């Protein structure tokens, strides 16, 4: 039989899922063509929140890879927008003047974010939060600006605000009503939520009506109707979405608030379907994936000529994806006159639960602080179950495993994708699944918002038992399932000596690894065996390979070492001469108390170093950067200690050391802490008669105040304690974890107790000495090695020639 031509407009979550459903029912019947305005394969829009919050990366949110389209014979036109539909001749036209005919057409054009029509809304620095571009725009803004305002205190706005906080911005959330998420939460839960988020550092401006965005070309502030102006560098509008139905409307397909569809997702025009956020079914337009996926299923049946009951509408449930805050709501939220409710309010633990009952049947629920019961309540609401069914079973919910065991097979685990407990158990048993990722791959459970991951994980533990336990770990990267600890064990046990050997022996999925695992392995190998390991230049990031910092135009910056931030006339003269000789366009004083020469050409680097004749400042290294010092007892009337002297000793001892990530230190000579020890990886404060050693501070994106690790009497002890601390960090941290993250993972008390053990302390110091004994100055090493100079620093110039 001849294949039918199926055309999908909108390469998003609803449309592509619908195509998946069609292919599941009939993999041979259709030639599928997909148009998508965005230049990406279908990605998980929901996870943009997590991308912004720094929990995942854009690279990891692809739902359907390019290969998937290819393998399924789908012709995809990414970055191409359909501009008109001729429903009589059944053809469409795109902005690239492509004309394609169809037998069946699916409109899945999603929504457009609603932008408040404020004066100034077109200024630079005003954005929505809808797609990858918006997300990238916000991340970029956070690099150069400080203050953000999010308009809209709903789900999307709060997730955006949390993301911006994580990116180091100050955030005000503006909301027009007096409760947050007022469409999903009642007053009590809304207020609890507000308190919790304020604790996390969000600032709220409630009951405020925005009037104007002020500023020159870029936004500088937001003015409210009451006249108040709040300064800001970025405005994110998250005030709602509108069905994207312009194309349909212009093509004569009937619309109301969305494109009108029946139970089979058919529009009023033959052979044209609509699904997702652009569609309106029984006066409802949905903005969450669960209903959209249900729609896709029903639509697929109709397209493939199968019978089905059709789509019957959905009960909505929401969950906020902000770490540390658990809220859930479903169904009816506002109580009417006849509504009864079961309420639990535990202000002490911060837990609130309300289940709404009408005519003895469960119709809605709000949970705050503990949302484990969410999916179960949603099921009960969907069934319109009597309240007794909930109350009777309450005892069982206490422990996760019991809850899982007592669930009926028909109970929904993944609300977004409609996957039941039964379906997951069957997949685990039939296919021997042992990881959450495998379950995701086979059943779609947890593939969208990820909220049910803990439940899936409980279910795995319950069903697969031990096999699952063994898989509870984080792998180094996508090339392997081994964790860092396991890799280190294998390196030791099998005596592995270079990265390729590790990857071969441990069965990496790609022969030569990736940009994540290669530098990590290079580090672990060198750390475990400092004396023998041969550092692999080709497994280093460019800056560490070339011992200089690459700049955006491909030139480099050069920072010579200035121990303790102390310099002299000779060194300054040398630097000035070099700057003249090599026409250095920018000389800048760094935050680490030294001098940075910008704009040096790669091929000039060796000569610059040789002329400077100073050690490398390692400003590019995952290693010790600087030891910042205050002027100390020599000159300062408050100084109690020789901070410069101790800083220089520390820097001389640890210079050139490789660590999991960069390490910054400081020494101050009194509690005024002018060298800013509270935001350093190691910060020393000198007091009368003793030194305080602070660790795990960070002044960057993830601002963290350092913790007091120890108080000691002598400079010698400062050096030894620092060595013990850094060596323990070197041995146990994941590559690319700063001490701030590491201290949090390990716990300060644990680190203290490790260092308190005399024997361990001495051994750590020994291994540190061993590591330091092989350190070489990167610049000197390059200058002395002809092959290195040629391989790394020379460019080739060839004439264009002809033959």
């Amino acid at each position, binding site marked *: 039989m001849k294949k039918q031509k199926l055309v999908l407009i909108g390469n998003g979550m609803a449309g592509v899922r619908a195509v998946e459903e069609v292919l599941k029912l009939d993999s041979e019947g259709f030639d599928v063509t997909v148009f998508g305005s965005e230049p990406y394969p279908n990605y998980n829009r929901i996870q943009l929140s997590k991308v912004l919050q720094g929990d995942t990366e854009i690279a990891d*949110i692809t739902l359907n890879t*390019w290969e998937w389209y290819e393998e399924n014979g789908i012709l995809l036109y990414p970055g191409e927008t359909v501009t008109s539909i001729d429903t009589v001749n059944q053809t469409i036209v795109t902005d690239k003047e492509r004309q394609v005919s169809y037998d069946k057409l699916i409109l899945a054009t999603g929504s457009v974010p609603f932008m408040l029509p404020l004066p100034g809304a077109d200024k630079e620095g005003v954005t929505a939060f809808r797609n990858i571009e918006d997300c990238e725009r916000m991340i970029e803004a956070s690099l150069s600006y400080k203050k953000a305002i999010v308009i809209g205190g709903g789900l999307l706005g709060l997730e955006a605000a949390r993301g911006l906080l994580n990116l180091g911005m100050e955030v005000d959330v503006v909301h027009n009503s007096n409760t947050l998420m007022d469409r999903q939460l009642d007053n009590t839960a809304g207020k609890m939520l507000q308190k919790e988020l304020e604790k996390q550092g969000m600032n709220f401006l409630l009951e405020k009506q925005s009037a104007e965005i002020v500023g020159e070309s870029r936004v500088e502030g937001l003015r409210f109707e009451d006249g108040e102006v709040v300064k800001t560098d970025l405005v994110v509008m998250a005030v709602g979405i509108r069905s994207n139905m312009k194309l349909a409307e212009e093509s004569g397909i009937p619309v109301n608030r969305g494109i009108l569809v029946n139970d089979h997702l058919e529009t009023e025009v033959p052979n044209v379907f609509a699904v997702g956020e652009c569609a309106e079914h029984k006066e409802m337009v949905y903005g969450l994936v669960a209903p959209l996926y249900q729609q896709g299923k029903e639509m697929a049946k109709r397209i493939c000529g199968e019978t089905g009951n059709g789509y019957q509408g959905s009960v909505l449930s929401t969950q906020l994806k902000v770490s540390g805050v658990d809220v859930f709501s479903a169904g009816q939220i506002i109580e009417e006159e006849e509504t009864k409710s079961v309420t639990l309010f535990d202000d002490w633990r911060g837990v609130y639960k309300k289940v709404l009952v009408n005519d003895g049947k469960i119709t809605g629920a709000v949970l705050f602080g503990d949302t484990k019961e969410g999916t179960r309540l949603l099921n009960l609401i969907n069934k319109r179950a009597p309240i007794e069914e909930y109350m009777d079973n309450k005892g069982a919910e206490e422990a996760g495993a019991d809850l899982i065991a007592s669930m009926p097979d028909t109970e929904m685990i993944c609300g977004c994708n409609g996957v039941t407990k039964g379906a997951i158990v069957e997949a685990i048993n039939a296919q021997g699944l042992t990881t959450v990722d495998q379950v995701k791959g086979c059943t779609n459970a947890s593939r969208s918002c990820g909220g049910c991951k803990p439940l899936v994980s409980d279910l795995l533990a319950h069903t697969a038992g031990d096999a699952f336990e063994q898989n509870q770990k984080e792998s180094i990267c996508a090339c392997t399932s081994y964790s860092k600890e396991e890799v280190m064990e294998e390196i030791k046990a099998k005596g592995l000596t270079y990265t390729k050997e590790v990857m071969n022996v441990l069965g990496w999925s790609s022969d030569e690894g990736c940009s994540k695992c290669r530098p990590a392995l290079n580090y672990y190998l060198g750390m475990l065996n400092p004396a023998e390991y041969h550092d692999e230049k080709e497994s280093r990031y460019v800056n560490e390979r070339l011992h200089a910092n690459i700049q955006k135009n491909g030139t480099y910056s050069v920072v010579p070492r200035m121990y303790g931030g102390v310099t002299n006339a000779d060194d300054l003269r040398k630097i000035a001469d070099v700057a003249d000789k090599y026409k250095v366009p920018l000389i800048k004083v760094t935050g680490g108390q030294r001098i940075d020469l910008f704009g040096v050409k790669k091929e000039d680097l060796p000569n610059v170093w040789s002329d400077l004749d100073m050690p490398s400042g390692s400003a590019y290294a995952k290693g010790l950067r600087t030891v910042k010092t205050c002027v100390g007892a020599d000159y300062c009337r408050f100084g109690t200690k020789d901070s410069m002297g101790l800083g220089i000793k520390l820097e001389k001892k640890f210079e050139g050391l490789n660590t999991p990530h960069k390490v910054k230190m400081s020494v101050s000579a009194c509690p005024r802490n002018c060298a800013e020890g509270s935001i350093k990886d190691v910060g020393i404060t000198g007091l009368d008669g003793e030194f305080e050693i602070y660790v795990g501070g960070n002044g960057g994106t993830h601002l963290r105040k350092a913790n007091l690790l120890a108080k000691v009497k002598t400079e010698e002890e400062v050096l030894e304690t620092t060595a013990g601390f850094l060596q323990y960090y070197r041995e146990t941290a994941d590559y690319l974890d700063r001490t701030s993250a590491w201290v949090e993972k390990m716990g300060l008390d644990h680190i203290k107790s490790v260092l308190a053990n005399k024997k361990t302390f001495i051994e750590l110091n020994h291994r540190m000495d061993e590591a330091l004994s092989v350190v070489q100055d990167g610049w000197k090493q390059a200058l002395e090695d002809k092959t290195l100079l040629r391989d790394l620093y020379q*460019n080739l110039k060839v004439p*264009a020639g002809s033959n």
Partner: protein
Amino acid sequence: MEKMLNKVFVATITELPENLGRTVYVGEGKLELAIFKLSNGKIRVIENRCPHKGGVLAEGMVSGEHVFCPMHDWKINMSDGNVQAPDIGCVKTFQTEVQNNQVYVLLPEN
């Protein structure tokens, strides 16, 4: 249509380091290429600019047929020039010929 190609000598194969890129300027700096010797000995030549923000690809980390841009870690296939998902784009690739240890790049006549 037949295209004329210019055969340009760029390097001696034994002088190229394995899995490290090298920048090649052709003519008066008009054309900038990145040349790589892969671990299987094959030579790859691509345009020396990442389609994302112009990162210098010769300084990227090499794994098999792919190079990771040093700026923002875009992953690019050196044999067909395609940027790997979820990013999208393409860099120009150039054919090479090796004769007697000498590497030549075939450049389209302009």
